[in-house]
């Protein structure tokens, strides 16, 4: 089984490049190859001009990586000790390492946990500490693999703001970001590649990607929760349809990408037939998620249609 197939991408210096794709699409595999964690079975990959198979040491001096949704770290050590330890693997003098650690911890609002044992940190705080570890080496290229996975709204926003600031401070800094969150990719990335089943389906700026379906009308319909949504699938004029149950509000969000706006009347008429009623209606501009659904045939958080 091939995790990646005919992937051909070029990421420019100074670019914040996003990889969007569902679980198992091949995003992490691609990052692992570029980080020198995994050897490709065929093809060629170069990072900062160096071959990932033959020039690993030249690459490793200039990169770093942060993975989200994990609990890495030595629980017996304090946060500062943990990060200092990694600074030594890069040969950063202790005084300079401590200065960087303090600075980055302040940036990520983690300074109050500097001397806490890692085992006492929550998932969000561990992720922030992991970010400090990754950025402390001031890499030319950093790989962020779903850095906000599992974080609350405030922590996610803090990390997104930090990413933007970090990129803006030095024009040569480059970042490869994978994310499940379309809004995050839309907000942060200069260019985005949409990847599915190991293939790159599209690669462009978020604006240009959205223009791919610019002529499409997008209709969002929030209805009282229903168990069966198949009636909405085959309405003429609907190109793509996704749905998402919200247990907290007891509603179902239906999202249609329309070939023909005349379908709106049929969609609205289908709601009472399904035994539900409309809570809200919204006609929106295309988002990256719409692009994703169009290209992949399904959303990231709901079922295949």
């Amino acid at each position: 089984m091939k995790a990646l197939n005919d992937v051909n991408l070029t990421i420019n210096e100074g670019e914040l490049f996003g990889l969007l794709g569902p679980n198992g699409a091949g995003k992490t595999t691609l990052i692992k190859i570029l980080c020198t964690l995994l050897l490709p079975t065929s093809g060629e990959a170069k990072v900062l001009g160096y071959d990932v198979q033959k020039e690993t040491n030249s690459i490793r001096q200039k990169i770093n990586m942060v993975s989200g949704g994990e609990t890495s770290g030595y629980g017996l050590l304090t946060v500062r000790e943990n990060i200092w330890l990694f600074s030594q693997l890069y040969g950063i003098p202790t005084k300079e390492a401590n200065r960087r650690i303090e600075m980055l911890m302040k940036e990520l609002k983690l300074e109050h946990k500097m001397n806490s044992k890692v085992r006492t940190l929550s998932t969000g705080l561990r992720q922030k500490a992991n970010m400090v570890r990754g950025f402390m080496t001031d890499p030319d290229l950093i790989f962020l693999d779903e850095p906000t996975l599992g974080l609350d709204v405030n922590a996610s926003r803090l990390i997104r703001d930090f990413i933007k600031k970090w990129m803006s401070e030095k024009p040569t800094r480059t970042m490869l970001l994978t994310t499940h969150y379309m809004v995050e990719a839309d907000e942060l990335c200069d260019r985005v590649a949409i990847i599915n089943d190991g293939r790159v389906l599209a690669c462009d700026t978020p604006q240009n990607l959205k223009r791919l379906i610019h002529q499409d009308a997008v209709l969002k319909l929030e209805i009282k929760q229903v168990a069966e949504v198949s009636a909405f699938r085959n309405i003429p004029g609907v190109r793509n349809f996704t749905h998402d149950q919200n247990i907290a509000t007891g509603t179902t969000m239906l999202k249609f990408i329309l070939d023909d706006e005349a379908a709106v009347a049929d969609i609205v008429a289908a709601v009472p037939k399904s035994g539900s009623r409309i809570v809200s209606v919204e006609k929106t501009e295309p988002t990256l998620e719409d692009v994703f659904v169009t290209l992949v045939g399904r959303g990231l958080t709901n079922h295949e249609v």
Partner: protein
Amino acid sequence: MAVNTAFRNHNPSARKRNIDTFKCSAWLGWQMESNWTDPFLFAVYSIVKPIAGSLILVVMYAIISAIGGNNDPQMFYYMFVSNCFFMYVGQVLFGVAQIVHDDREHFQTMKYIYISPSNYLSYMIGRSVSKLIVTTFAVVITMAFGIFMLGIPLSLFSINWPLFLVVMAIGIFCIMAFGLALAGVSFLTAKHQGGMNEGIAGVFYLFCGVVFPVSTLPAWGVAFAKVLPITYWLELIRRSLDLGAGLDQALVGTSTMVCLLILVVSTIVFTVIALIIFKAGDTVARQKGLIDMTTAY
């Protein structure tokens, strides 16, 4: 206040980075060995554990001598010294191999260490140093207990110090090389590694003259024992301490210098093999994407 994270670029030499890596990984290893409880409890544990181990030997010897009707104290010294120094095999060899499993599965830090520009071998050797220190402490405690409580006739003046120090250095180097070979295999395995360690410990314990002389083994066992550097290492330790030496008929005809030469040559051979295994394990793990594997086994 706006903070700029564009830090001054540091580009240390590979040598400095490897030294830093060695130092910090040795520090990490020591923290993990010693910092899991309060210092008093750690001190008690470090003393009681080896003493308890040596008491087991007393019981084993009592049973063997009662069954066999052999009360030769040299046999007890042989067992005591061999078992005492075999702790290095158990702790250092398997401790080194365990590092891969711990860092990858438990702490999930291995991928971050691996993608750093440091030499992973420097890191492994640094981590092993703490195992070496803790084991040396346990060996000293055990030997002291043997001398003062069990009547082992050893004094600082009766030791052939030059031979002892040379043999210790070569032996520990050899044991660490074995550990690196196992670490190379550990790249490719998960929980199986624990069983593998126990199996290899059993082989060394059985064939290297730890509990009974090599000469009591069948002919094929003696032949096998004679290619293992641990066999010669333990024999040379016994000779340098003058405890239980000359008891093993399989080695009694081999002079100390020849034993030493065989130890050096076999250590070099096993070190080369260990480095090849380590490198091969590393490469295959990278081909199969196992460097960041977490199995939750």
